[in-house]
């Protein structure tokens, strides 16, 4: 065995974050450590290098027969980078912004292999070439911000592999990348693994990734390793209820067919942002950045329109344009009324027809207002004549509607502040705030992407339920194909501000959608 972890417990101060975890990893093997955020998977993996100074480690970690927990500092240093290398989730922060990529790769080579400058540079170029970075001779002198996200992740892999490690720890290696690049990075990792017989310990919460990549899976829940085994066995016949819950959190389509009619229509919608021009010209004029151009679509009552695209494809700008929160050209009509034809008062009245739920439930609720104030706000604007008691009753029924009632009543929640709620609960509060004014359309801007997988499923189920109950129409903006598949009737695929595909979900979406679109090169 290359790596043997036995009864490993990790505590920070009085708090035990990992409890008696045991697993092994053989040369050339791919183990995926799966769990939601906070399950202790990253701490477990990085502790094999003893990267946390404040952590108290108990148990045993043996790497090639040597006990890591008993190593002296200089032995540890030789282990890190040389035998075990790490690639992190966010290459922008994991790379030093003021050093060139080449210098960072060379640093490891000079440190561990004692190479001279010229030799290290040649090897750095070779390393970049191996990870398929175009023009490695030029890129070796680039700073991290001059590279694209995919190139940065490749550079980090090159850095990790420069000293021929035997074990690679990959901490969510694709999470920060655009969907279209994820597959490329995974393919690269796989190719390198085969070439070098590298063992890979992959930390992830993404079960699709696990399916594609891992030989074996270990599932962690709140610091405890609840199940491990061969990938196929765990994914197909999970034994532990938590694993079942995780796997079950993928796709579950429960949507009703839409009715006839049209509640929202966009014709040739365009959004343009002014951008500053460099130099003295920027004093007098501004450049233009076209975020959306020529998007046309309709939305029927009870229908969900998925808008899918990579970051920067213009999907959020489109959502803001639908809400009339950003200036847009073309025509957008809500319930037959075009925003552009309305005065201020009429716009205010129309706003109750179209509401929004945002991605990050932490920034979408004002931290210094109580739940009652947050949810009740729409009523004070659109139905100011309600009495105190009527208002309270409406707020309670809205909270009840989104499943927030405790012991049959949400009364106890009214006086609380957002920080007292979990991410999933906060997202429910945000949904209640949108629904209390009885809108016909709700824009969902990545409604689940900052939530844990098991919570994601609950929120999606809730949204589907509410749609059936109230006949709502949704515009679902997301980058996640699974979410669109579970929720949408029709879908728009956006790329570089244009709608590149459009149609029914089952016709448009396929697993290799991004590859087919010939997405941005690395």
């Amino acid at each position: 065995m290359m790596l043997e972890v036995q009864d490993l417990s990790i505590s920070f101060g009085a708090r035990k974050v990992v409890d008696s975890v045991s697993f092994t990893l053989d040369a050339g093997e791919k183990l995926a450590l799966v769990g939601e955020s906070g399950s202790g998977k990253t701490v477990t993996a990085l502790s094999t290098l003893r990267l946390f100074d404040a952590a108290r480690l108990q148990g045993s970690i043996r790497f090639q027969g040597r006990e890591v927990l008993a190593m002296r500092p200089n032995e540890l240093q030789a282990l890190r980078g040389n035998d075990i290398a790490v690639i992190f989730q966010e290459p922008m922060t994991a790379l030093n912004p003021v050093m060139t990529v080449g210098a960072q790769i060379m640093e490891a080579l000079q440190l561990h292999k004692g190479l001279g400058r010229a030799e290290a540079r040649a090897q750095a170029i070779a390393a970049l070439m191996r990870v398929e970075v175009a023009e490695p001779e030029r890129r070796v002198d680039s700073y991290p911000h001059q590279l694209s996200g995919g190139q940065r992740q490749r550079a980090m892999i090159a850095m990790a592999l420069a000293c021929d490690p035997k074990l690679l720890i990959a901490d969510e290696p694709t999470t920060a990348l655009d969907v279209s690049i994820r597959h490329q990075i995974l393919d690269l990792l796989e190719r390198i693994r085969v070439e070098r017989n590298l063992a890979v310990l992959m930390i992830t919460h993404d079960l699709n990734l696990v399916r594609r990549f891992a030989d074996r899976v270990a599932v962690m829940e709140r610091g405890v390793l609840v199940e491990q085994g061969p990938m196929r066995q765990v994914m197909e016949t999970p034994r532990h209820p938590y694993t079942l819950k995780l796997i079950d959190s993928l796709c579950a389509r429960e949507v009703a067919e839409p009715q006839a009619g049209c509640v929202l229509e966009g014709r040739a919608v365009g959004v343009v942002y002014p951008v500053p021009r460099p130099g003295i010209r920027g004093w007098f004029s501004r450049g233009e950045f076209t975020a959306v151009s020529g998007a046309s679509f309709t939305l029927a009552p009870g229908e969900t329109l998925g808008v899918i695209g990579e970051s920067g494809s213009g999907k959020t700008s489109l959502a803001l344009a639908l809400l009339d929160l950003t200036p847009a050209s073309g025509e957008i009509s809500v319930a037959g009324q075009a925003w552009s034809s309305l005065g201020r008062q009429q716009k205010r009245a129309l706003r109750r027809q179209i509401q929004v739920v945002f991605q990050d439930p932490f920034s979408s609720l004002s931290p210094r207002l109580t739940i009652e104030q947050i949810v009740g706000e729409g009523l004070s604007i659109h139905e100011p004549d309600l009495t105190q008691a009527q208002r309270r009753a409406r707020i309670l029924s809205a909270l009840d509607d989104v499943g927030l009632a405790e012991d049959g009543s949400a009364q106890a929640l009214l006086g609380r502040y957002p920080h007292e709620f979990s991410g999933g609960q906060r997202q429910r509060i945000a949904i209640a705030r949108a629904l209390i004014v009885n809108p016909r359309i709700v824009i969902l801007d990545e409604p689940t992407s900052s939530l844990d997988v098991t919570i994601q499923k609950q929120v999606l189920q809730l949204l589907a339920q509410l749609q059936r109950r109230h006949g709502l129409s949704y515009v679902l903006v997301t980058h996640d194909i699974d979410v669109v598949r579970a929720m949408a009737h029709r879908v728009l695929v956006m790329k570089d501000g244009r709608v590149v595909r459009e149609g029914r979900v089952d016709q448009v979406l396929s697993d290799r959608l991004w590859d087919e679109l010939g997405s941005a090169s690395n």
Partner: protein
Amino acid sequence: MTERFVKKGGASARVARSGPPFDPHGLAGQSPANPSPWQRAWARFKGNRLGYRSLQLFLALTVLSLFAEVLSNDKPLLVRYSGHWYVPLVQTLPETTFGGDFPTPTDFLDPFIREQLAKPGNFALFPLNRYHHSTINYFSREPDPAPPSRQNWLGTDDRGRDLLARLLYGFRLSVLFAFAVTIVSTLFGVLYGAIQGYFAGWTDIAMERFVEIWGAMPTLYLLIIFSAFFAPSVGLLVALISIFGWLMIAAYVRAEFLKNRTLDYVRAAKALGQRNRVIIFRHILPNCLTPVITLVPFEMAGAIGALTSLDFLGLGVPEGTPSLGELLAQGKNNLDAWWISLATFTVLVFTLVLLILVGDALRDALDPRKEIAEDAP
């Protein structure tokens, strides 16, 4: 993250079941079940012993100094003379009331009057310190400035006025001045920064240019010029210091508004059709007050310093007004009268240190990282 959510969820569920009566603002008990972010910050502030004690001491001294007329005055609080009760503190009594010869206001430090009041059946309740800040002690045994003695506990200044009384009244003036300047400049700065940051774009650019021009004004010269034009008064000084004191607060508030206006909770309020005024004051402002509140004690310390230095230069409050700066100037002019500089210096430093300790504790209590650490398990 999950763990954190789960734990928080668990805690709130427990609270809900044990069921305190509904209380929308969490004000019912000493430790409310649902503390607002402000209440939590206040609890953290109280946890800082040094800062909390400093605040208590500063407020106590401020309240005491508000009663300076009762603590340090040349008139008795209460007099019984020939079977009548008098309250000289609020009455103006001619000397003839107490058997004197002239119908002028009574000087209670006059040995003759003292004798009259000491006669059996008569009675006078004097304040702790028997001098008003304007009282000149004509009966001092030493030449002015007189060193500390049993009559003048901290000595007198160069015009024979009691130093303790002048310090007490001077402290009060400084603190009230600081409150006034801070309130005026904070209100204006918050309003200015809020409008700038919320509307951004051209509004922001125009207002920012004005700030730059305004900030480049030579404050001291303007003060000198103004003091030549107008009769010096405390009100004028409050106005002058305030109109230059709001710049920093406006800058902080502007930055916070620029950040917050793009957050989703503001977008959600706009999508609901909320008015700009409500979004500014109800949604964004409470989230932008952290730097403002943190700055308040430092702003006050700055105002006290500004007033003191203007008085020291003779550009400040009108002649005769008790002020710490004027006393420092006297101390400089009378180096042998060490009690003047030493006592004034001590009061000034003590006040400023208290304010800075309070400010430091506030900054710690409102540190957003502490807020997050408290949420984490």
